[in-house]
């Protein structure tokens, strides 16, 4: 179980390879890699800045990772979330889950990213040709997180 909140970039392939090798009980490794897109709801995005609440972020992520391990039989899991200013194409977040069975790996991975989107203390602002604006929370993201219950 690893949680990393960092400004630096990461090597998604190396992380997936590491988690694949933790045990020969692992039958499936699911991963989600989030990247900065160059198009928002209304206009082109030239850059994005992610701000977070140091201390609370780590605490909240540890809590949700513990919940995922309770709900699904995971052999390992990883969350890496970056903060700082990024340009389109850059990596922001990586979630990896490993389990004996693929359904557990998929569900736990989706649960973690849904939760990250709505409950981890990160805030995004986007730079567009019209200026910089804070990204508003999306109803779809809240609905996605709520489907997992409390």
């Amino acid at each position: 179980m690893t949680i990393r909140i960092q400004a630096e970039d990461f090597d998604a392939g190396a992380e997936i390879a590491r988690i694949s090798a933790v045990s020969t009980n692992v039958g499936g490794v699911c991963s989600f890699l989030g990247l900065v897109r160059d198009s928002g709801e209304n206009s082109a995005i030239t850059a994005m800045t992610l701000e977070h609440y140091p201390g609370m972020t780590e605490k909240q992520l540890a809590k949700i990772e513990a919940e995922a391990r309770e709900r699904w039989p995971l052999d390992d899991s990883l969350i890496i979330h970056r903060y700082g200013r990024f340009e389109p194409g850059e990596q922001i977040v990586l979630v990896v889950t490993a389990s004996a069975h693929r359904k557990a790996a998929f569900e736990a991975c989706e649960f973690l990213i849904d939760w990250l989107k709505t409950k981890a203390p990160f805030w995004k602002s986007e730079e567009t040709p019209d200026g910089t604006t804070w990204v508003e929370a999306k109803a779809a993201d809240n609905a996605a997180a709520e489907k997992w219950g409390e």
Partner: protein
Amino acid sequence: MKILYFAHFREKANIAEEDIDLPAGVEDVNSLLDWLEARGGGYTDAFADRNHIRVAVNQEHVEFDAALKDGDEVAFFPPMTGG
């Protein structure tokens, strides 16, 4: 008491962090919000509309009726948009 401001709260109040003594009459998040709003300027601008305010006390997400005491770390921020 330490107060942290994130995202547009930091921008509107023009401050990231401050240490204050627990003001007289402030017992919970609601009364702290009243006190901040009454300060005027950027604070009033930031805290007049309570709809999109989220708050954490000692790094745990809480509701506005959460009690406060001196020494607490209180943080104000909008709904999260990570991931």
